[in-house]
């Protein structure tokens, strides 16, 4: 033990920070979020008003939910470009089936969940059976699902007034201390909590990490890695369907053109949240924080009167910084 103490003293401050970030990947994003909230609050009086906080939470809910599914895919060293397309397709399925056939809200919702899961399962099968890179698989299915979405919807938006109220439930609000909070945001928080628990405390969670960390080592350790990957993509598909529900509530309709850039935004949230694109490292709480950081940046810069193009540039810089930080953390030594 004494030697360990001596080594501890020998470490520079920088090395200690590196070790801290290595063991607690979400600390970095949490600090960034906190600092940016403080800075934007100082820049604009309106930033911390209940109405504005409510707005940020609503804006973050859809991408945040997608990011939960995206996180587990990226933890396995994969990537899912099709998440936005799956979300839009399932939102159309839920809304159109209910509005055209008069199917009640619950079965329509469950049908959407089933469609989302099947879409995810297809991604998983292509990744595990055909052994194609996830980037290529989901680039392909992104177009397939989007085309199906245009075909099935006939490129027409379905109005909220034609849908059962359950589908719009996620957009309804309740008020806490003057801040209106949507049920969609609550669902996101619950989903993050549940996924964080599963990833941390179950064997499946560990296998998700180890599969992304070292596929061959996991296989040799007796983990059925193909099954893990399949379950990850299918679960992600289900979560995208939950995001579809949140999306319908947010825009009070189902539009085949909604969420065009949400796939990339979800990847942005995951990466800024400290999850490594190389797999095996990260946390779903980080992705929620990442989504909030993007939301806070865009909103705060807008309130400060900064042009949209600079908001976009700020997000771009954040991504580069986050990935560079991840590379540095990975080089940690004993």
């Amino acid at each position, binding site marked *: 033990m004494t030697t360990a103490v001596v080594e501890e003293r020998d470490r520079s401050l920088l090395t200690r920070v590196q070790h801290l970030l290595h063991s607690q990947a979400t600390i970095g994003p949490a600090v960034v979020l906190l600092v940016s909230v403080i800075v934007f609050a100082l820049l604009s009086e309106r930033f911390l008003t209940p109405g504005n906080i409510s707005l940020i939470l609503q804006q973050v809910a859809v991408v945040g939910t997608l990011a939960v599914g995206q996180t587990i895919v990226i933890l396995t060293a994969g990537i899912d470009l099709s998440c936005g397309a799956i979300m839009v397709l399932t939102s159309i399925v839920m809304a159109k089936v209910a509005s055209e056939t008069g199917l009640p809200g619950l079965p329509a919702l469950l049908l959407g969940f089933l469609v989302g899961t099947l879409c995810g399962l297809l991604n998983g099968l292509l990744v595990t059976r055909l052994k194609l890179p996830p980037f290529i698989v989901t680039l392909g299915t992104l177009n397939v699902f989007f085309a199906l979405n245009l075909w099935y919807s006939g490129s027409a938006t379905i109005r909220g007034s034609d849908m059962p109220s359950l589908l719009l439930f996620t957009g309804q609000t309740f008020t806490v201390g003057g801040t209106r909070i949507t049920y969609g945001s609550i669902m996101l928080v619950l989903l993050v909590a549940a996924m964080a628990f599963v990833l941390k*405390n*179950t064997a499946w969670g560990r296998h998700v*990490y180890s599969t992304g*960390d070292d596929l061959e*080592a*996991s296989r040799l*350790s*007796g983990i059925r890695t193909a099954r893990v990957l399949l379950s990850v993509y299918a679960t992600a598909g289900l979560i995208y369907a939950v995001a579809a529900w949140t999306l319908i509530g947010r825009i009070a309709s189902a539009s085949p053109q909604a969420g065009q850039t949400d796939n990339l935004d979800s990847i942005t949230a995951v990466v800024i949240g400290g999850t490594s694109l190389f797999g095996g490292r990260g946390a779903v709480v980080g992705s929620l924080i990442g989504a909030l950081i993007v939301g806070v940046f865009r909103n705060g810069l807008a309130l400060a009167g900064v042009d949209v193009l600079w908001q976009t540039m700020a997000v771009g810089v954040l991504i580069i910084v986050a990935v560079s930080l991840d590379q540095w953390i990975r080089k940690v030594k*004993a």
Partner: protein
Amino acid sequence: MTTPVLQARGLVKRYGKVTALAGSDLELLPGEILAVIGDNGAGKSSLIKALSGAVIPDEGSILVEGSEVSFSSPIDARHAGIETVHQSLAVAPSLDIAANLFLGRERRRPGVLGSVFRMLDRAGMREEARRQLDALGIMTIQNPGQAVETLSGGQRQAVAVARAAAFGSRVVIMDEPTAALGVRESRAVLDLILQVRERGLPVILISHNMPHVFEVADRIHIQRLGRRKAVVDPKSVSMSDAVAIMTGAMEPPAA
């Protein structure tokens, strides 16, 4: 005659036109360290992979304590009590030591927390990991909660060996455990191998390093051109003769 703990009879493995194993035999006796040596392409890896369930042989049979088994995956071999330390170590670097020790066979909490919520017994696994490291005299590792990627090469090897020793009930197979290590670290790993034998577990040691082989092995299996060429006693055969047999420069002494 004692029944071999693990036995291979006439194993054949072909990869397309390449024959990696051309009817190879192997016998591992209780409580011994059997070294397997051979030139590159002699079929050492294929032999070991067949015994550890990582590849399925085209022909031949594998017997565990005299009864025939067929392994279709590494899990089958593990269920038969055969643990392998792969050359790649097969550890997940970002997971901690305890998680790696129990990778693929995690323990769940007792009661509802385990059965309904599928919660892992993290504290229990950490304690057991600590116990296993202590039992093998691995004192350089202080904290089983440390990520494996923060360990040195020798320490990683120690973790892989500890995992095999902890769960192997019949046989531990080690593939080139000292290949990537320095002198001091190799020394520690050789001591570990002897420790495993002390526990009564027989070991199959694949190595290119003749001094290491001659130091710890009880018998040496020499593989050549996909077959077992000879089994020699390191006390009666010199290192250079063993290499000569391995490369085909010399015929093995009549047994």
